[in-house]
């Protein structure tokens, strides 16, 4: 293992941390439209542009649909391109979000998770990201500002890899992470850029010697074949990501994976969560471990592509599993994380019962007591007690 780099401990909000990651990757183009709680991220980035620390071309657009359209145009022209949004902004982008992935443009987006309307709410849940989970992007969820910063850098490498070429989003919880002053280690600018590397395009619209048509009409005769090539790509993301995680760990000492395991080796009871709630859950798991309860945490980081086969050995051999979803799938059979986890566990010998808790909608705080409530229920399930499959956590109902 090579020598781990000396890094500076700083206090930044999650938004500022991601702005640093984006600046350090030296993007050529940034296009965005303001929306709470994302705005502060692009404020910080625009500050870097204004004071000369970034040479990115800032494109200030009139809507998020335009923000993503400009990003697609810039990326197709061969530019390293960033953008950011939240909630309704992401919903307005939706059409072009699919196009970015279909055209295999490695655009980087900070999606600062916020509830979708209505009623109108500015606080965190994952309904924005989950609504776009089938659009073809790489989705990473982050527990804290450190992880958001690191993932901001890591995503460039995975996304721009010639075997991948897919857009990637770094998801972090609105306000809870985006606006919280938190301590984290930053790489210096040169080390960060050395890690990310200079941008290489696979095709460009701006080469007169090699004229190109991007995004033509594609009907019944070829559309399906083009989707085949996109579908074939996602399994490759895992191999590429694994290498990038290794390289990042060698550089910084911080190791990431498709998920993080916390006290999971001997755990009979498992909680599955995404994002900031994982940290809160860890503190509560420690309390229960002190009482001798064999409970552990599976913090899913990469939700798309979904590492289903990789997760199977982790899901096997447990007594009860709780999947926490910070978004509801209205009319669906449980939240999106639940249905994925349950599908992944289907057919595993001796598979544990898997129950779903919807929590934290519209920014409802995920309290220590909520994690405890889930662990108590897991103990009950493991002991053969009755517990509904679908549950709400922290809702006065």
């Amino acid at each position, binding site marked *: 293992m090579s020598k781990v780099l000396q890094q500076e401990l700083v*206090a930044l909000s999650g938004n500022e941390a991601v702005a640093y990651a984006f600046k350090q990757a030296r993007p050529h183009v940034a296009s965005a439209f303001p929306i709470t709680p994302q705005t502060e991220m692009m404020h910080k980035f625009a500050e870097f542009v204004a004071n000369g620390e970034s040479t990115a071309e800032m494109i200030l657009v009139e809507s998020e649909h335009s923000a993503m359209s400009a990003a697609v145009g810039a990326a197709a022209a061969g530019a390293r391109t960033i953008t950011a949004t939240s909630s309704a902004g992401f919903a307005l982008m939706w059409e072009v979000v699919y196009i970015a992935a279909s055209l295999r443009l490695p655009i980087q987006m900070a999606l600062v998770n916020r509830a979708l309307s209505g009623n109108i709410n500015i606080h965190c849940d994952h309904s924005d990201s989950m609504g776009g989970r089938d659009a073809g992007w790489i989705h990473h969820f982050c527990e*804290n500002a450190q992880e958001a910063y690191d993932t901001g850098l890591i995503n460039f490498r995975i996304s721009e890899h010639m075997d991948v070429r897919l857009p990637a989003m770094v998801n972090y919880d609105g306000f809870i992470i985006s*606006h919280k002053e*938190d301590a984290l280690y930053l790489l210096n600018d040169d080390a960060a850029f050395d890690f990310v590397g200079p941008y290489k395009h696979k095709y460009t619209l701006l080469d007169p010697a090699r004229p190109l048509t991007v995004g033509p009409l594609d009907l019944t005769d070829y559309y399906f074949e083009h989707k085949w090539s996109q579908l074939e790509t996602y399994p490759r993301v895992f191999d590429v990501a694994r290498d990038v995680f290794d390289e990042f760990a060698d550089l910084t000492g911080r190791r990431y994976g498709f998920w993080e395991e916390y006290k999971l080796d001997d755990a009979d009871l498992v909680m599955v969560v995404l994002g900031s709630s994982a940290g809160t859950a860890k*503190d509560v798991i420690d309390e229960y471990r002190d009482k001798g309860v064999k409970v552990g945490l599976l913090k899913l980081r990469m939700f798309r592509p979904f590492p289903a086969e990789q997760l199977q050995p982790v899901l096997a051999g447990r007594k009860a599993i709780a999947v926490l979803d910070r978004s509801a799938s209205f009319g669906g059979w449980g939240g999106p994380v639940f249905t994925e986890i349950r599908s992944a566990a289907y057919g595993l010998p001796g598979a544990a019962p898997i129950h779903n808790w919807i929590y934290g909608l519209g920014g409802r705080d995920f*309290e220590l007591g909520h994690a405890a409530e889930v662990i108590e229920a897991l103990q009950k399930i493991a002991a053969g007690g009755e517990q509904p499959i679908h549950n709400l956590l922290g809702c006065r109902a």
Partner: protein
Amino acid sequence: MAAQMVEIRWHARGGQGAKTAATFVAQAVLAKGKYGQGFPEYGPERRGAPVRGYTRISSTPIRRHCGIENPNIVVVLDSSLLDSTAAGVTAGTDERTVFLINTSLAPDEIRAKINVPGAKIYTVDATKIALDNFGKPIPNMPMTGALLAAEPFMDLGEFLDAMKVKFSTKFSQAVVEGNLRAVEKAYNEVVSA
């Protein structure tokens, strides 16, 4: 791990600088190699509305991201909030909680209002100190000085240095120096019972 962590809950009215104070303390402790976390409770912030801020200080990385239900220290920037049930100043507190109140009254005079038997109470007239030193009734920074006296998470000198670095790019020299004087004065004048 939880035992090594100090959880501070700030109660204020919109415009009194609770967010700035809560996040600044979290930044300042980095100079001591400690981990800090600071954030307000975001809502429809309006000048005068009751608001909360949260600060965590720990010798190890802080993992929890929830609000603070059982604070070690409650800092109240406006003593009128003690009369507000909506503000919930005493929620989740007990005799181990330390209260730090911006008031012209002495700790024993304000104890009845707080009504948490056995709790330690500090008071300081941060509004007067603010008016005397920088001419505005913004008590947030003087209250950080009083907090530092009640919970010595770092040396006063180091804290003032961190303040100078943080605020010199944003405020005039006169404002920064007035605040530095106010922090030091509150640090020295805070009394307890």
